[in-house]
Structures are given as structure tokens and as C-alpha cells.
């Protein structure tokens, strides 16, 4: 592997390592993907399918980074971190998407609770980040605006 101090070199190095791990990760995803939750067109049904009867409450310990206005609604960058301990999963719900559940990450104690993804949005919508830990669900919400653009001064 090329040894380099640049960010680009570092990332290229990571990819070389990553390809070794890719296969089992894909298999794992297929096994645990909650089909019913992703397929649902209703937020409540997705939540029920993901979390059963676990209590859900707003939390200021869930941090959601999203743009105020999307530069490209097909790939909206989203990053979620949390101070909550013993995180089991992090999920993303976009209220006004046809299928509101956009991402669901299963975490173990071995990793820091930080996930990033790019999500597709059909229109302006609240974006919800949900963190499950010790049987409870904590969430925060931010509004992301989708616009046709142009006509700005």
C-alpha cells in the first residue's frame, strides 16, 4: 500500500483495506435489512416495524447535520452523531418521501456512534434522526428545503 500523508492518499489506502471487508458487510446488510420498515409508506408503520413498542422521545443529545437548503436533492448529505451511550441503531426518516425510512444503521459497542449518508429527497421535508439505545428511542428533527433554484440575486 502506498504510504502518503495526504488525505487523498489516505482515502485510497482505506479503499484498499475496505475491499477486503466489503463482501461480509454486504451479506450482513442483506440479512438484517428490515424490509417492512423500508417498504412502508407510513411513518408510524416504519417506526412500529423498527422499534416495536419502545418509547420515543425528543433529545438534545442527538446531533443531526443537514443543509438548510439542499444543493442537490438527489444526494443530500446527512451526518448523525450522539452523546447517548450503548447505541444499538441509528435511523433516518424523511417525512415527505414516498418511503419515509431512508437509512437504518446497526451499531455495536466497538464503533463510535457517528454515521453519514446521502439521501434522496422529493420535496422540502422534516428529516428525523432516531437513535435507539437501551431499549429506548431518542430523536431530533431538522427541516431541509428542496427548491427548483435560480432567480436569486
Amino acid at each position, binding site marked *: 500500500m502506498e504510504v502518503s500523508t495526504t488525505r487523498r492518499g489516505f482515502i485510497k489506502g482505506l479503499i484498499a483495506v475496505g475491499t477486503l471487508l466489503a463482501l461480509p458487510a454486504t451479506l450482513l446488510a442483506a440479512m438484517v435489512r428490515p424490509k417492512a420498515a423500508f417498504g412502508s409508506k407510513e411513518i408510524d408503520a416504519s417506526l412500529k416495524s423498527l422499534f416495536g413498542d419502545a418509547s420515543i422521545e425528543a433529545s438534545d443529545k442527538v446531533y443531526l447535520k443537514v443543509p438548510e*437548503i439542499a*444543493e442537490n436533492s438527489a444526494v443530500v448529505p446527512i451526518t448523525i452523531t450522539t452523546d447517548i451511550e450503548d447505541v444499538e441503531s441509528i435511523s433516518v426518516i424523511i417525512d415527505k418521501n414516498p418511503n419515509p425510512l431512508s437509512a437504518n444503521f446497526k451499531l455495536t459497542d466497538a464503533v463510535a456512534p457517528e454515521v453519514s449518508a446521502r439521501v434522496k429527497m422529493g420535496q422540502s421535508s422534516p428529516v428525523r434522526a432516531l437513535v435507539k439505545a437501551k431499549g429506548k428511542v431518542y430523536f431530533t428533527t431538522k427541516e431541509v428545503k428542496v427548491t*427548483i433554484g435560480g432567480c436569486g*440575486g
Partner: protein
Amino acid sequence: MDRREFVGLLSKASVAGMLPGVSGWAMAGEKLQPPMFGNTRILHFTDCHAQLLPVYFREPNVNLGIGPAYGKLPHIVGKNLLKKIPEIKTLREAHAYTYLDFTAAAEKFGKVGGFAHLKTLIDQCRGEAGAGRSILIDGGDTWQGSGTALWTRGKDMVEACNMLGVDVMTGHWEFTYQDNEILENAKLFNGEFVAQNIKASEDALFDGIEVYDEDSGHVFKPYVIKEMQGKRVAVIGQAFPYTPIANPKRFIPDWTFGIQEDDLQELVDDIRSSEKPDAVLLLSHNGMDVDLKLASRVSGIDAIMGGHTHDGMPVPVVVENPGGKTLVTNAGSNGKYLAVLDLDLGNGKVNGFKYSLLPVFSNIIPADAAMTAYIAKVRQPYLAKLNEKLATAENLLYRRGNFNGTFDQVICDSLTNVLDAQFSFSPGFRWGTSVLPGEAITMDRLLDQTCMTYPETYVRNMKGEQIKAILEDVCDNLFNQDPYRQQGGDMVRVGGLTYTCEPNGASLNRISEIRDLNGKLIDANKDYRVAGWATVGSKSPGEPIWDVVATYLRDKKTIKVEKLIEPKLKGVAGNPGLADYQGEIV
């Protein structure tokens, strides 16, 4: 004379005659700059839109503040502004800051701005401050807005700014040139081009594109420290956050913007602890409403010196936040004003300040000879084209205002007539100079209104529901009650159409009763032939907008806008940002 009489003066067309007891703020030969306060002077201009020569620029009579912005600066116009701000003391200043009796006042007081006049004023201000005690900063929208700026790809303005002595700049319309041209111009610029909120996309970083910092992804330096006689001032750059949305992404495919409030707070904290500055400034192209919100949420910035929304605000707004107080200023547009922020710095903090926004009246500020010669040299190869007289204006032509301007109406009429369309759209830009009645509309003046890198026109069929969707979308970018979800432009101008607008309405639910000029309601499912220009998605196929308008003007020879067509407004009667409205208010 009391304040009430003063406020009344400009509206009585009395400026053209004798005004006993009222003196101009400065007469020829007088010192133009305010006396120095403190030990450090920051000079700031913004949004000059490549206007090298003096121009006329009419301020708006419609600049609505909605929700929390109601009745607050900058959303106060005309007489309401004069009543609100006692610092406006002379008729000349009242003319600079308002639209009141614009034609008569403009004829009396003359043109504003011009780089040769700006240069003289700047040099005087720097002289007054004392050697090494001042910097000059430019908020951007400098490389676009004139024919010569477009034809030289912004380079005429880079050199003009070098001659002016600009130390630091950030940008917005700068990013409507191709990315490699922008980087090249930034290198030709003798000052520092700063932006904390422009980063390369992860894909582009991986491909190894040119950036300032490969680890952080910053395309430009996020900030610079300027040391003035031992006083250290940090200037952070904040480029227009929504450039890839409001303007074409295709010119800057690898760069991503946004407000990046968290990054900014982190950067301010880092600068405070590692650089030990005496003051931290944000050179911002957010627009004033965004700056006001930002100032309430980010701590540790002493002043946000802003632009973008072209609000020439004579006084700063002081905003409280968890860490203290932040000044928010906005220095107007078109070279019309020079802002002077004097600071008393020491022991790592601001101990006092004085702010003035100086109008640049070209007939009382002498032109700098070297700059005059440079401007003549820049324009010389293009003079025949620029000076072509296309038509004569029979009434005042201007653009600025939330809904329509007389020049926009001419552009919309040109689109529908020349391109044989039923309706037309023209963007609600805030740049574009004014033409007085009786003046020639030259190609120079037309390019002031239209010159940019994506001027191509289109004619296409649109369903009524699409027309409504466009109006709603743009209206939300103007009147969303959260400034972070506004873009800072005005409402799209329409030709052949009228509509009703309820600015306080919910998002995507403000527009109703869209009618043609015969009063017939638009059918949501019917196709209409619509012309427009400045598409941000892909390049449109038609000829540039200036050719379309020039064809119309040459044909008409004289231009008279009989009545400015403005939408019917609901729910904003009595708003201090609304005066002398030409449309119906219900």
C-alpha cells in the same frame, strides 16, 4: 427645521429648487471622510457589480419584512426609513438611502459610485487613519455586472481592485465563471480571497482537484489575520451560501457551499484561542437577514460586514448572542457607498467603535487620475458596442424592489414580443442600474441589467400548474420566515401575467388568482408558451437576453412604461417596507 418637515421635503419634489437652511453633507473641497475614531479602521464595500463608472441607482420602495423581520432594518423604506434613522441628516443623504422623488433628486445630486471616485475617498479615509492602521475589504459580486467584466472574464475588476488596494474579498457572482477561471483570478488578485464555507466535495478531493487545504477540504483560505500597528484583526470569509442553487452548479461542479454555522463557530473559537486577535470580523455575502440570524447564534464575532441583499443601511444593527454582542452592517451596492468601521482595539478586544456608511457622490468627490485612465483603457476596445444608443427612456427605468421594476417590465415585454410568447419570466436580481427620463438606453445600460455567463433565452410550453409552482418556489425563497431558507433575491418578474401574493402565507401557498392581462384565470392543465432566461439547470438554446432586449429597444426607439404591473398584495397593508405601491393592496 424639525424631523417631520425634513422627512416631507424629498417627497414634495422640492429638491430641484432652493432649500434654505439645508446644506449638503459635504461640498466640493471639504474633507469627505469622518474623523478617525480609535486606532484601527476597516473600510468595506460590497456588491459593486463591476460598475467602474458612476451610475444612478434607485433604492426600493418595496422591501417587505415578514414575520420576525416586520418593521425591522433593513425592511424599512422611504419616509419610514428617514423617520427611523435620525443619522440621516441631509437631503443628499436622504436621496442616497431612499427612492423618494428619485428622478428630481438624482438630477440635482448627480451620479453615485465609480471606481475613480471610490479610490479618492478610500485614499482619504486611509490617510486620515494613519499609516498601517486600515484595511479595505470587499464583500464580493465584484467580477460580474458589466459588459467589460464578462468579456474579460472578471479580470478588469481584479485589476481595478488591485489598484483600489483591496486587502481581502469573498464572493458570489464570482462563482458564475468556470472554476479554473475563478482560481486564476483569485491568484491575480493582490489581496486574499477568503471563504470558510466553500469546500471541495469528497469525490472531487479524491480526484485531487486544486484546494487550499486538502485535510479540511477548504477551496480558499477560510480567514486571514491582518496586523495593523500591532493590532490583530481576523477577517473570516463567508461566501454566498446558496450559490450552487441560485446560480448554475455546472460552473463549479466540485464545490459545495452552505451557511455552515457549526464550522463557523468552531473556526471563531479556534481563531480566538490560537491567534489571539483583537477583533474578529466576518466578511459576509449571506444577505442581511441571514447575517442577523447568524449573529444571534454564533458567538465571538465582533462585526459581520455584509452584502448580497443590497441594503444600504446607514447604521449597524447590534445583535445579542450567548457570547456578547455582534454588529451587523450592510453596505448597499453598485459602488454607491463606502462603509467605515473605526475600532478602538486593545488587550484582545474591541473597546469602542464608530460606524459610518458614506454615500459616494461622484460630483463632490474628485476622480482619481490613474483609475480614470485605467477605466478608459479597459473600455476602449468595446466603446462602439457599449455606447450604441438602443432607445430613449421616457420615464425612470430601474429594477430594485420585491416584485417588479420598470426596467424588468421592459425586459419581460421584450421576451414576449421578440420571442412570440404568451408569458415571460425574468429573474428578480437586485443588480442593475437606473436610467433617468430622457436619457439614452445604451447597450452599456442594458448590459448592467443582463450581463452574466448564462444569459441564454428559452421559449417552451408550460402548464398553468408549472407556472404556479415556479411563482410559489421563488416566493418562498423571498418570504420564508426563516432567513436560513431565503436566498436573497427578489420575486421573479412576469410578463403578460398578474397574480395575487400573500407574503405571510404558508410555504408554497402564497400565490393565487394567476391571470392573463385580460383578467382570465390561468388553467392549471393548459399549456402556455413561456419565454425566459438565466436558467440554472442546463444551458438554454436561445440567443442571449441582451440581444433579445436590444432588438425590442431598437424597434421601439422610445420606451415608456405606462403602468408598472405589480401583483395584488394580501395581508401587508401598513408594512413599513411598503410605500408608493403601484399594485392593489387588500
